[in-house]
C-alpha cells in the first residue's frame, strides 16, 4: 500500500501475540491427528538419512518439497493471511523452495544426504530431532498452551529447522541455493516473534546459526581431508 515509508517497523505488525498463538491453536485442532502421521514421516526421513540409501535421498527431497509446498499453501496462504496479509507474499517463496526440492528429487545427479559421525553431522542430527520433537516441547516450556505448540508441517518454523538440518548433511553445489529461503525465513520469524514480545523469538535464528556453523565447519573438514 502507498506511503509505507511513514510507517515504523512495529506499525507493520497487524496482530497481537494472542492472535498469533490463536492461529496455532486453530491449526492444531483442525489438523489433529495429522501430527502423528507427520511424526512418523519425520522419523522415516531420519532413518533414510542414517542408512545412506541413494534411492532414499530422492524420497527425502520429494518429502521436503511436499512439506514446503504444503506449508506455503496451508500455513501461509490459507491460515496466516487471516491475520497477516503479508503472509500471502511469503507463500510463493515456500512454493519455489518446494519446487527446488522437487527438482533435487528427480535430477539424475540427485544431491546426496549423508550423515557423518563428525561434530557437524551430530549437530545436524540433533537439530533434526529438535525440529521434530524438541521444537513443540520448547514452545510448551516457554509458555505456550499445549493446544498452541508449534509442530513441523503444521506450522512453518519447525519444518524450516528440520530442512536446515537436512541441508547441513547434504552434498552438491546446487544445495547451496536451497539455504536462502530457510535462512531468510528464520530471520523473519525471529524478528516477528521478537516484535510480538514472544519468548521463543531466538529459537529459529539460533537453529539457523547452528546449521550454518555446522555446514561451514563440515565443509572445511571434508576439504582438508581431501587436501590431505
Amino acid at each position, binding site marked *: *500500500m502507498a506511503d509505507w515509508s511513514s510507517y515504523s517497523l512495529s506499525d507493520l505488525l497487524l496482530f*497481537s501475540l494472542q*492472535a498469533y498463538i490463536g492461529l496455532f491453536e486453530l491449526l492444531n485442532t483442525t489438523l489433529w491427528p495429522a501430527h502423528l502421521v507427520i511424526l512418523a514421516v519425520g522419523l522415516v526421513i531420519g532413518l533414510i538419512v542414517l542408512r545412506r540409501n541413494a534411492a532414499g535421498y530422492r524420497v527425502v527431497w520429494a518429502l521436503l518439497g511436499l512439506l514446503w509446498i504444503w506449508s506455503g499453501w496451508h500455513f501461509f496462504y490459507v491460515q496466516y493471511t*487471516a491475520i497477516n496479509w503479508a503472509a500471502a507474499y511469503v507463500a510463493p517463496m515456500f512454493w519455489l523452495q518446494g519446487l527446488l526440492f522437487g527438482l533435487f528429487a528427480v535430477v539424475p545427479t540427485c544431491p546426496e544426504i549423508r550423515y557423518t559421525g563428525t561434530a557437524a553431522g551430530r549437530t545436524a542430527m540433533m537439530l533434526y530431532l529438535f525440529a521434530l520433537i524438541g521444537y513443540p516441547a520448547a514452545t510448551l516450556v516457554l509458555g505456550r498452551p499445549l493446544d498452541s505448540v508449534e509442530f513441523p508441517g503444521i506450522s512453518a518454523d519447525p519444518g524450516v529447522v528440520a530442512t536446515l538440518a537436512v541441508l547441513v548433511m547434504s552434498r552438491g553445489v546446487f544445495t547451496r541455493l536451497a539455504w536462502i529461503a530457510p535462512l531468510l525465513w528464520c530471520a523473519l520469524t525471529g524478528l516477528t516473534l521478537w516484535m510480538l514480545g514472544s519468548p521463543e523469538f531466538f529459537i529459529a535464528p539460533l537453529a539457523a546459526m547452528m546449521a550454518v556453523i555446522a555446514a561451514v565447519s563440515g565443509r572445511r573438514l571434508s576439504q582438508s581431508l581431501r587436501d590431505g
Partner: protein
Amino acid sequence: MQINRRNVLKGSMAATFAGTAAGLVPARAMAAPLARPLASTGELLPLVGLGSWITFNVGNNQKLLDASADVMAAFFEGGGRMIDSSPMYGSAQATIGYGLKKLGMPETLFSADKVWTSSAGNGSPQIEQSRSHWGVPKFDLVQVHNLVAWREHLELLQTMKTAGDVKYIGITTSHGRRHTELEDIMTSQPVDFVQLTYNVEDREAEQRLLPLARERGIAVIVNRPFQRGYLVERLSSSPLPDWVAETGAASWAQFLLRFVISHPAVTCAIPATSKVAHVRENLAAASGQLPDAALRKRMADYVGQL
C-alpha cells in the same frame, strides 16, 4: 475506585448534571457516557469509542472471535457507539461483523470505516467489501485512511454522501504525519470528520489542527490515545498524582483518556482494547466534570516530569 458496571452507571448519572453544565450531554438518558454533538447535524456521539487495530485482528480463532464480541457487548452495554476500523486491519472488519451479528446489530452503532487503496478505481469496491464484512446496510462514516489518494477518494465519498450511501465523510492521519497537508484539506474540503493522533505526550495537534477543527465545525476523532498502549504501560510504574481526584480519573488509563476528551475540539477518542474490563474502564472515563484548561495543563506537566 474499582471499575465496574455500577461505577459506570454512577459516573453516567453524575455526568447528567456535571456534563450538561459544561455543554456536554449524556448520550442516552441512563448509563450513558458523556457525548458531544456533531456540528454538522447535531447528532450526539459519546466521547469514548472503540478502535480495532490489532485487538480485533484475530483471524478465524473462535475463542478470540467470541472474546472480541464480548468486548463489543460491554461497549454497547456501557453506552458506546463509534467503532472504527479499516481494510488495513487484517480480519478486524470481519470480527466486528461477527460481533455485530452475535449482538443482533445494536441500533446505537456508529460505524466508522476507511478507504485505503492507492488506486482510485479500487475505492468503491473496497468500501463495498468492508461494508459486507461489517454486515451493515451502509456506513455512518467513511474516512480516507492516512491521506492515501485523498483527492480521488474524497470525490468518491462526496458522491456517496450526496447519494445517501454514507452519512459522514472524513480523513485520517496518525503520529503527527503530514499535518500541513491535513490542515490544507480541512480548510479546502467539505469533510465532516478528521481523525488524528492526540494524547498527553503527542500534542502537536493542539497547535493548529484542533483549533481549526473547532473553527470549521469538523468533528475530531482521536486515535492512539494510549500510544498503542505504551503510555499506560510506562506510566503504570509511576504513582498517579496526589490530586488525581480533581481529574475525575481512577486509573492511569482514565487519566490519559480524560486528558484527551476534555479538549473542547475532541469529539471522540477511540482506544482499542481486547479486554472487557478495559472497555468499561475507558467508557467510564467519559463521565462527570471533565478537566478544564488549567487542570489539563497540570496533567500534562505532571506526566512530562515523570
